């Protein structure tokens, strides 16, 4: 069984191995044991409510209960930009117009912005290659929306995700080469790595503060603004299916887009329903396609658990689940749980 739970200290080895396997591009989880240990500790303090809600970092582990090992991780940062400065470029338009000259030129322009400050970010998604497919990635990502739904007061009304931008197999980013590197004598991969280590705002402070007129950048750089890395396409599609849209913000280094949604309009949130638990004796075929699975959460802040069950378990007022599922969710008969489809059903 695959179960979502808060990340714990003993997940460090598994997390470190995953971070190493992820390679470049995953800036929020660099393969640095000390840093990862600090993140786990931060997450623990958050779930135990020993830190201020706005400073919260919620990291969820996907545990394979047979292997008794963490095989994936995903996260929510309660508020970005509170203890450091959070930068994006806002992609906007400058119009130069003159009726007499018959000129009306639209110039796409990047404005440095701190607009996302104070907004909740979903981040740090990483899934072990051994467990990809069959809707596991969906569970890892969407369990966060169930958490956001049940504990809205801890988060902003809007939530966003930064998507990895375009870089080639050598880690060269066309936007960085045309823009960032002109102001900061460094390879993209190095800047990216420094970002992950918490130096992003330092680097951002070296970046140009005045608007950047895109026609002044080479075509290769302009082409990647607001575009995601091909490996990130599935993640983008998943978020789009949840109702996330490009919000006009792009990463200052690689031009990757930010996508955002109001929590109340996220599909998982909208389609969620509550049911009382009934422990079932009847045998259950759990090995069903992702389309027929639903996520089930125990709605606990401190001991948050989510797993998947076949949709057929859902009754009018109750959901009948096998004893081992109830045990994994730490729920008993009569407890109120929340359910949401794992996959987009196409309903709107």
């Amino acid at each position: 069984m695959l179960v979502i739970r808060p990340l714990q200290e003993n997940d460090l080895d598994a997390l470190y191995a995953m971070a190493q396997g992820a390679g470049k591009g995953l800036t929020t989880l660099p393969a640095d044991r000390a840093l990862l240990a600090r993140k786990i500790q931060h997450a623990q303090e958050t779930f135990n409510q020993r830190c201020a809600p706005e400073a919260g970092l919620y990291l969820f582990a996907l545990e394979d209960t047979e292997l008794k090992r963490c095989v994936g991780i995903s996260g929510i940062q309660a508020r970005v930009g509170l203890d450091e400065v959070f930068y994006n470029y806002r992609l906007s338009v400058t119009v130069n117009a003159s009726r007499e000259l018959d000129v009306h030129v639209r110039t796409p322009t990047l404005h440095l912005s701190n607009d996302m400050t104070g907004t909740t970010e979903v981040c740090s998604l990483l899934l072990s290659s051994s467990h990809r497919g069959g809707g596991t990635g969906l569970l890892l990502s969407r369990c966060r929306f169930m958490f956001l739904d049940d504990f809205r007061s801890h988060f902003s009304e809007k939530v966003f995700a930064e998507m990895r931008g375009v870089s080639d197999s050598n880690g060269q980013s066309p936007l960085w080469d045309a823009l960032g590197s002109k102001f900061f004598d460094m390879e993209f991969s190095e800047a990216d790595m420094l970002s992950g280590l918490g130096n992003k705002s330092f680097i951002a402070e070296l970046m140009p503060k005045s608007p950047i007129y895109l026609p002044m950048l080479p075509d290769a750089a302009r082409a990647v603004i607001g575009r995601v890395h091909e490996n990130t396409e599935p993640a983008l599609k998943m978020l789009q299916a949840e109702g996330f849209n490009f919000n006009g913000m792009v990463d200052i280094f690689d031009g990757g887009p930010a996508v955002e949604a109001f929590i109340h309009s996220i599909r998982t949130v909208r389609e969620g329903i509550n049911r009382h638990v009934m422990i079932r004796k009847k045998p259950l075929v759990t090995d069903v396609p992702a389309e027929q699975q639903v996520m089930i959460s125990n709605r606990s802040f401190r001991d948050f658990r989510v797993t998947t069950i076949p949709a057929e378990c859902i009754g009018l007022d109750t959901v009948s689940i096998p004893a081992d599922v109830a045990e994994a969710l730490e729920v008993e008969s009569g407890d109120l749980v929340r359910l949401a489809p794992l996959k987009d059903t196409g309903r709107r």
Partner: protein
Amino acid sequence: MWLVRPAQPGDLNDILDIAGGQGPRMSSTLPKKQDALSTKIDQSTRSFAGINKPDEPKRFLFVLEDTRTGKVQGVSGIDARAGNGQPFYNYRQDALIHASHELGVSRRVEVLYPSHALTDHTLLCSFAIRPELRGTDAFELLSRARMLFIASHRSLFTDKVVVEIQGVQTQDGEVPFWDSLGRHFFNMDFETADQYSGLLSKTFIAELMPPNPIYVTLLSQAAQDALGQPHSQTQATYELLQREGFRAGCYLDIFDAGPVLEARTDALKSVVTSHPKTLHAASTDDGETCLICGGDGGDFRSTLTPLAESLQDQVKVSPKTWEYLGLSSGNTVRVTPL
């Protein structure tokens, strides 16, 4: 004999001919269209006569006349206040230090800031001359007669004088700075933009340029190389103005990035060296060739003359020169060496 005098309506066609021989230059203040030029000459005439309309800027236009033929061979101008009541646009070349203590790095970032700082300073402008005369004594006379006019009408002008030098242009007429910057905002090549610029005010066109600072590092290499560089054809002008005391500061032309030269009015060579003196007759045509000027306002004339003798308060020059200047013995003149 070469004579510099205020432009008159009859000079219109000669000036148009000279202006037409100049390549495209958006910052030029010399109209290439008959109506606009005619208006400019009229305004100049009023400025010389001191009978400007209310709020009309003082703009002076001089011509270089070959007295043997009566043909005008060059033109030059002074705007008493750059911008003529409107903002006068330049880029100011400046630098920012982008530094991070935490990362141990410090980097100098070159930036071009849109600026109006030179607005209302006296501007030398509208200089055009037959190519074959470039670098000759007549060329020097045409340019420096303006400094002599300023010296003899000092109260009309400000304490600082500026002049825009044409920037780099390739042999095909391409302007690298324009191609890297202005063209994106106008969506037209330099020559087309230049044609429009003759019809509309410079301010109007400058306002189409981006209002924000421009990072030099994002310009094309050719544009970066052109910053503050004079057009090769302006070599003689540039050197002449340097001898006069002009220096390139931090300002650039917004269209072609040519340098803007600046000088303190009272430190200009022609102003410093040309004291008012009384005109007397010389018995000889020998002597070192000098610039001489006399006459107030519309009667202003300047020419080249052999200087027979220069004393504390008086100069002796050939009466033939008096004739050109329209002066007679006892009148006040200014003389300065070439």
